[in-house]
């Protein structure tokens, strides 16, 4: 793995669109429209009406998830056709579906099917209580665990983005109370994420639930590119481990911070964020190491890409 140097990272489902993630890429709109058209045929004809500027579907979590997936898949295909080949790929949270598409594990259509089925499967177990998620910046893990213990809160840490950057999930009222407590403890920033399901928590996997049926009838292949798990930072090479990963990813906490460090220690020197916005690229500034993060949403993306091409 030490010879490898480029990883494609696929961001999570969004709750806000960026201006237009492909606006700096000549020819990208055609890619986006092609994927959007296929998605409209498969899951919902009105997806064709999507427009970044009118913020279409932001009030519809499932359609926003489809749009995020469409955008990520279109971007990775565009970059691939431009000669940018990734040595590894990883899906940040629900970016896993686009990572699987990029690695050739599932077809674009089956990825859409997985998203829709996972959404319904999760809703079956979370529909009886209002859930939410939130972010805390400026406190350590010890601080956060301390607040949870001290307040008797049942919120769960679902992800660590950096030394002092965390995501939490749980019941809606508990999340709000926790964020207030975190602010009082000295958090620089807290924010409620506008989602209704507590992804990566045990609430998604109560006793008796079984999400494996979301894969029924869908075809999985061995990956053409190794996929990196954000759950335990392992490299996934085969179909069976990927099937397991797609289910565990729904209810298992992840650690993006640890995964980035591990990937860097194994020789990854360039990460390209394939999706809407540049949240992961921004976050990388707070992670140790010399790896370069590039986002198509950043002003110098094309120039940066040309600079690193000869090094790959």
């Amino acid at each position, binding site marked *: 793995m030490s010879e490898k140097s480029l990883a494609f990272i696929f961001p999570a489902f969004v709750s806000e669109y960026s201006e237009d993630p492909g606006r700096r890429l000549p020819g990208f709109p055609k890619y986006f429209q092609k994927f959007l058209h296929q998605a409209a045929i498969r899951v919902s004809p009105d997806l064709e009406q999507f427009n970044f500027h009118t913020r279409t579907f932001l009030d519809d979590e499932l359609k926003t998830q489809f749009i995020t997936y469409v955008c990520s898949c279109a971007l990775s295909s565009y970059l691939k056709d431009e000669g940018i080949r990734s040595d590894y790929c990883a899906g940040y949270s629900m970016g896993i579906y686009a990572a699987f598409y990029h690695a050739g594990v599932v077809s674009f259509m089956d990825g859409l099917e997985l998203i829709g089925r996972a959404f319904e499967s999760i809703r079956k177990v979370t529909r009886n209580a209002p859930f939410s998620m939130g972010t805390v*910046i*400026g*406190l350590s893990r010890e*601080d956060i665990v301390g607040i949870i213990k001290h307040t008797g809160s049942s919120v769960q840490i679902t992800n660590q983005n950096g030394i*002092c950057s965390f995501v939490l999930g749980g019941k809606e009222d508990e999340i709000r109370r926790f964020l207030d407590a975190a*602010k*009082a*403890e*000295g*958090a*620089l*920033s807290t*924010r409620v994420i506008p989602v209704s399901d507590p992804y990566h928590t045990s609430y998604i996997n109560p006793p008796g639930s079984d999400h494996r049926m979301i894969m029924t009838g869908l075809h999985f292949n061995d990956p053409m590119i190794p996929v990196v798990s954000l759950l335990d930072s392992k490299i996934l090479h085969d179909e069976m481990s990927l099937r397991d990963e797609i289910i565990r990813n729904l209810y298992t906490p992840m650690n993006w911070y640890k995964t980035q460090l591990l990937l860097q220690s194994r020789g990854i020197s360039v990460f390209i964020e394939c999706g809407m916005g540049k949240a992961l690229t*921004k*976050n990388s*500034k*707070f992670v140790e190491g010399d790896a370069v993060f590039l986002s198509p949403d950043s*002003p110098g993306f094309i120039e940066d890409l040309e600079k690193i091409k000869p090094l790959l």
Partner: protein
Amino acid sequence: MATITENTKKEVKEIVYQFFAEECEVDLSEINNDTNIIKDLDGDSLMFLELIEIFKKKYNLDIELKTIGKYAVKHPVQTIGQLIDMQLLIIRHENKLLELEK
């Protein structure tokens, strides 16, 4: 307690202006002390954190993020001018920032 000179004030202002111009993709001329970081520049908390780290390194500051967080709860920052004032207080008082409340 560090002494804040006119040169420090100028330097902090330049760094803050330059930082937001680059991060938010706006022309330097569009930024002034009354510019609202969220509403006018679409800024976010990660930018605030990054700026703190920049100043911590530049001035070798001994300050915990939690101290800044607790101060910011009572003195929320909305504009570029308020942010510059807070950075100057951080440079001057470091971990004793909260003693200003007493």
